[in-house]
């Protein structure tokens, strides 16, 4: 671009240079005519009026003419015009030579010799004028051509200048478009990212800041990234809180369930025990009377019975150890022994290592009660119930075994499959025994228990439960 401007500038200079040259030529050309006429006048004045004191003026004018002719001769590069100027130079020379000769002859006092030379000089003056006007035609033609050329040249220059302007406009428009694209395209993409983020359910992506970007855009992106990071943090907080709330809700539900189940147990217990305090006091009083009266067995029986009832009452909603349960079972057995006498053989086999294990209260006794009531109560003799507790690999294994009537195989399968559902209670026909026990264990151990009802080989039923070994230490 700048090169073309320089070229245009240079060409313009060239045009002006040419014009200057033409003007100079015109000046020189005009001066030639003036000078030769002056020379002619001086010559006439000297020869005709014998005005010899004008001789110096003649020589001055002559030299002026010759110097002008010389300058004119070298004022052009044009061949035709150069030729004419050269001719004019030599014509001036020929003329002034002749005129000088005539004047010298005149001054030297040879007027008769001077006259023919003077006439010849006049003829040369005439010839020079002839050639001058012919040269004028050539010059005029040349100048005219030069002017036309310059006009064409100027037109081309203007056209070139105009095209450069047009090209510049086009280029600047393109640059402006490209620049605005460069500025707006990151904003557009930012807008897209932000609108996507607005409807997003997930974490919002941050934007990677590209290098060589615009500062304003970088600031905007940074701000957006901070904004996105905060939103993501809030989002995670909300998610955590929701999890926590759900856990709390689950906990509450569980607690409610436990409470409900216990309430059912309590209700059942209340139905069979009208007033526990009254009963305890009564039993205690009867035991004392029996002791005073020397009825040892009755005393023992009442002792067990009282203990059993108190356990039921006191530990009802408490976590107990297997040792507590063991004592309770022993008390219950003592009572049943009185009731059933020798008909019932009761074996209780608790490993010492199980005693510290924690579990909800009234777990084992209901199982035993169930075995007696549903298994062996109808036996006249040889009723057998066995309770076992042992620890194997951090788990407590409870087994209650009886040689009772047993359960049909089909029903057994069904019971096993339904064992942890709410229907279980119905299947055991109103007994608060097994289903209640299993449910409470399941809640207490968070479902971490195994339960199985099996048919005993020699008749009867075995209930196997294993639960995690849990004590006060964890």
């Amino acid at each position, binding site marked *: 671009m700048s090169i073309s401007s320089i070229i245009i500038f240079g060409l313009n200079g060239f045009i002006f240079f040419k014009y200057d040259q033409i003007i100079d030529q015109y000046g020189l050309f005009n001066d030639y005519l003036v000078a030769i006429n002056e020379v002619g006048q001086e010559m006439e004045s000297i020869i005709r009026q014998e005005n010899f004191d004008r001789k110096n003026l003649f020589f001055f004018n002559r030299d002026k003419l010759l110097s002008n002719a010389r300058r004119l001769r070298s004022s052009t590069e044009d*061949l035709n015009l*150069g*030729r*004419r100027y*050269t*001719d*004019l130079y*030599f*014509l001036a*020379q*020929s*003329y002034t030579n002749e005129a000088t000769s005539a004047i010298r002859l005149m001054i030297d006092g040879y007027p008769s010799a001077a006259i023919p030379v003077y006439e010849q000089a006049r*003829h*040369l003056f005439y*010839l*020079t004028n*002839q*050639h001058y006007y*012919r040269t004028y035609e050539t010059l005029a033609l040349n100048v005219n051509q030069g002017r036309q050329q310059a006009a064409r040249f100027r037109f081309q220059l203007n056209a070139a200048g105009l095209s450069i302007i047009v090209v510049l406009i086009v280029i600047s428009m393109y640059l402006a478009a490209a620049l605005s694209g460069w500025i707006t395209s990151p904003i557009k993409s930012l807008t897209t990212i932000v609108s996507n983020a607005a409807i997003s359910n997930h974490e919002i992506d941050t934007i990677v800041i590209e290098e060589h970007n615009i500062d304003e855009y970088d600031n905007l992106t940074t701000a957006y990234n901070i904004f996105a990071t905060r939103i993501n943090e809030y989002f995670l907080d909300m998610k955590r809180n929701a999890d926590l709330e759900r856990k709390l809700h689950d906990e509450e539900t569980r607690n409610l369930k436990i409470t409900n189940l216990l309430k059912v147990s309590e209700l059942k217990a209340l139905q069979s025990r009208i007033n526990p305090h009254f009963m305890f006091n009564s039993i205690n009083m009867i035991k004392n009377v029996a002791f005073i009266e020397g009825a040892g067995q009755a005393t023992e029986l009442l002792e067990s019975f009282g203990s059993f009832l108190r356990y039921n009452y006191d530990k009802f909603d408490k976590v107990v150890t297997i040792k507590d349960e063991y004592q309770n079972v022993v008390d219950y057995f003592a009572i049943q022994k009185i009731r059933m006498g020798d008909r019932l053989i009761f074996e209780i086999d608790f490993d010492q290592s199980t005693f510290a294990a924690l579990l909800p209260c009234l777990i084992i006794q209901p199982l035993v009660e169930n075995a007696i009531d549903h298994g062996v109560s109808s036996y006249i003799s040889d009723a057998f119930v066995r309770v076992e507790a042992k620890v194997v690999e951090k788990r407590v294994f409870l087994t209650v075994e009886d040689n009772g009537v047993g359960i049909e195989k089909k029903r057994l399968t069904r019971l096993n499959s339904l064992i942890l559902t709410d229907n279980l209670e119905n299947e055991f026909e109103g007994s608060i025994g097994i289903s209640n026990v299993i449910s409470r264990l399941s809640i207490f151990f968070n479902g971490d228990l195994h339960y199985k009802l099996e048919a005993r080989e020699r008749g009867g039923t075995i209930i196997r439960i294993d639960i995690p070994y849990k004590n006060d230490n964890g």
Partner: protein
Amino acid sequence: MTRISFIPPIENHPFWLAAREGMAKECHRLGFNLDYVGPDIVNQDRQIELIEIAIASQVDGIVTSAVDPGRFDAVIRSSVRNGIPIVLIGSDSPGSLRTVFVGIDNVDAGRKAGNLMIESSGGKALIGVVTGYSRQLSLNQRIQGFTEAISEYPEMRIVTVEESGFDQINAGKRTKEILLEHPEVNAFLGVSTNDIEGIARIISEKSNSSSFSLIGFDDVDFTIESIKNGLVYGTIVQTPGQLGILSTEALAAVFSGGEVPESFIETETRLITLENVKDLY
């Protein structure tokens, strides 16, 4: 700058323009600067004045053509005295101090024209002659040669010789006058370049144009067209371009210090009739 001035008898004339073309080519080749300037109409005073200007301009060489041989002798002398070689082309002034003449053998060319006339007319012709200028040597030499050629034929003679001043309109006027004054004339000879054109234009208007025998010189377009359509029987053609070239070469020889070996450098002529007119260009 070696300056050559070529001053033809008439500036804007096809013959001299063709000569100028050949000279310009040669000058360009040799690095000479050529100035071509001549009178607007044939005007020997003006032509001589232009030669004087060239002499006063101290040019290096002059080429011109002597229309009227005697009138150019003074200016030719002046030129040579001023140390400026001067070459005459086309028309010579043998008695002058001119450096060299370059041109055709005009007597021979006239003879050829006479032979064409004999062919055309079958040896019976009363001839009107229109020439450019009655005192131009070259033209008179042609007439001389022509007269020689027909002299053997008793039924052929020149009835009259008229002067056109190298102008085809004048040539036409002279033709009309001849036909009025000499109604027996049935043949014409145009001696200088434009004469046959003027003659042919007048004859073409006549109903019996085909009964005329027309012979001319040189090859202006109208002459060539007239040969093609049978109006003009034939023409003697010079080679003006060659005149230009040879005259420039002669000057170059003088400039380089050598003498020009001959005082007459002959250029060729050609006969153009219907038979060979197609080969002309």
